């Protein structure tokens, strides 16, 4: 904190802050310095704006700030929407029965054994959020035994919420007849009553928005998430469920939208809010010991670059 960054301003003499041993006085001088810096930056900005207005069209173009998403490492698995092979692959994969409208989703929600209050409440909110879903208590049953029973009862997906330290922290979605199983790490779970100015959820079919699932793996995960919700949204209900992928984190939000005029929308958040991160994608239904993994997150091998993402 004591080291000073180069500032664009014209400070004649940079005080050597780190020489002040007294923490309170040091903090005060630092505060003053930052204030000065901010003033100078504001002046610069204003000057630039005035210049740009004056020049009109001849103004220099706005500089684009460098972000991690901008400088993302080139991923060769990025899907080109015109790619025939990928299209054919997706037209025949395990979730194609949903996308061909041959099955409608019927979801089974369950949790780990002996769930705590928060997990229970979360399960109930998920049940409200996902149409045509049912909660079953786990009661110590093996997943490998539950899955054939669910298949025989025509469930298309099973969602399992794992918890640790009284908080839900993991999500396993398994598409049922023989579909892929995705295991997510869940964080930042907020129930409806914890949100400020939240709205009341209704039973209308939601619109599902999937943002930024660009790579081949992202496509598969996106399709898996979309196949939980029914096909036809009820636009009258103005309810939207969003899965937004950024930097390999998937943010789940639910909103009610209202168009105030052609350009402005009002959003009111409903329902739970959580963040997911994909840990593994396994081919076939849940079988963590003997199943074949399509993608596994290996921390030390894969996290070598801050600008490399997989979804």
């Amino acid at each position, binding site marked *: 904190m004591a080291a000073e960054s180069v500032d664009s301003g014209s400070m004649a003499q940079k005080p050597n802050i780190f020489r002040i041993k007294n923490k309170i006085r040091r903090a005060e001088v630092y505060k003053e310095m930052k204030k000065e810096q901010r003033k100078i930056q504001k002046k610069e900005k204003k000057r630039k704006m005035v210049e740009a207005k004056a020049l009109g069209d001849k103004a220099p173009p706005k500089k684009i700030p460098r972000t991690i998403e901008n400088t993302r490492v080139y991923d060769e*698995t990025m899907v080109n929407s015109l790619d025939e092979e990928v299209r054919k*692959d997706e037209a025949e994969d395990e979730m194609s029965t949903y996308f061909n409208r041959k099955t409608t989703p019927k979801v089974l929600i369950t949790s780990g054994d002996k769930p705590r209050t928060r997990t229970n409440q979360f399960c109930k909110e998920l049940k409200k959020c996902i149409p045509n879903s049912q909660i079953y208590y786990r009661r110590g049953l093996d997943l490998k035994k539950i899955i054939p029973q669910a298949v025989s009862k025509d469930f298309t997906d099973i969602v399992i919420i794992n918890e640790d330290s009284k908080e839900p922290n993991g999500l396993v979605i398994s598409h049922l007849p023989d579909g892929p199983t995705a295991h997510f790490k869940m964080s930042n779970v907020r129930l409806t009553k914890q949100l400020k100015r939240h709205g009341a959820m209704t039973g209308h079919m939601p619109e599902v928005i999937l943002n930024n699932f660009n790579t081949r793996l992202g496509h598969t995960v996106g399709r898996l998430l979309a196949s939980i919700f029914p096909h036809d949204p009820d636009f009258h209900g103005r309810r939207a469920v969003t899965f937004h992928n950024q930097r390999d984190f998937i943010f789940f939000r639910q909103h009610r939208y209202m168009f105030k005029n052609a350009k402005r929308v009002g959003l009111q958040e409903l329902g739970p809010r959580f963040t997911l991160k994909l840990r593994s994608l396994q081919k076939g239904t849940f079988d963590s010991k003997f199943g074949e993994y399509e993608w596994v997150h290996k921390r030390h091998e894969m996290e070598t670059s801050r600008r490399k993402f997989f979804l």
Partner: protein
Amino acid sequence: MARHKMAIHVGNVFVGSETGLLKGVDLEKKACHNLNNIQDVNRTQEICALCWGNREETEVCVGLRNRLVKTYSTEKNEFIECMECAGGSGNITGLAKYNNHFITCVQSGLVQVWNDQEDKKIEINAGENICCMRQNPQQPFLIATGGKENPLKIWDLQNPTEPMFKAKNVKNDWLNLRVPVWVLDMQFLPDSKKIATCTGHHQVRVYDPSASQRRPVLEMEFDEYPITAMSLTSSGNQAVIGNTHGNMALIDLRKGAMVHCYKGFAGAIKSIQCHPTQPLVASCGLDRFLRIHNIDTKALVHKIYLKSRLNCLLFRSEWQSDGLSGKDRNKDNTSENVESGFHSDTDEDEVWEGMEVVGSKQSKSNTGNEDSEKGRKRKTTKSDEKHNSSLKKKQKQV
């Protein structure tokens, strides 16, 4: 793709995918081509097994999920034969060629040798739930089968009624429970009767039919996930194994220990093959990449994205180069390239020997050119001279 374009593509590695596409990959250009048309294939034609059709490696035999066996000719660049293997159930788990006859093995355990009229010549029932069938490359009448709760059996096609060797399960474990059997892949060790298998319970075992015991001679464990693919290196003492979690490792079959791991995989490894002469190993899997590693240095040499999930691969022994760039580029040329590589190794040794003690840094290229002709002669003593020159260098530095 137009016909004339397809004629140009030469593959070094043939990969079969789940969508039914057979892909030829040209490693020098790092390009991959679909050898059949995307519109013609679907999931029922998923490629389950691949093998060479002839010794010259110009024909590739493809076993599909709907029990067809097709032969693809690399010279003509099209599928020339198609055969249906009726009988048994489940998909094709093993494919081989014996005296120009196909040997097919399906999951229900029916091993059939077909003759030219698509008629069964020999039929063997190898038990249920077969996961893999392999043929001994040196003695093509021997085949091995194994599967889930189906121990390793070696069959002699000349006496097909009973297995020549049937493995016995290991002793009960430390809790006195029966150890489950699940053979996923096997390989015949060259120049011996031994056979190595890898199991779904993360064990690698070596059996020796000529030894007095039917139990494995060597057993080792690797990681915690089913080992789905195995391939022997050219030396025959080491094997490269891969499991469903994406861990691939080189293990020593004599010591029963892991030498080192290869990195970079994200998904299950379905098929591995080591090159017979060069120290390269090709692997493909569910993460849709074909990777080629150097066996000893663990370095990733090639990594190619092949948009579908990959099931099996074939590595060509001699790498052909593209016919486009001139007619003089042919097999002779590639063998020349291999030899010049050998020359450059001896060039480096010559540099060490040719360097003066008093540290005048001669550029490598100069000394290399001078001594390249003398390369072969000094081969026997090069290690001594290298040692001496390095000693001299050390003395000079001190």
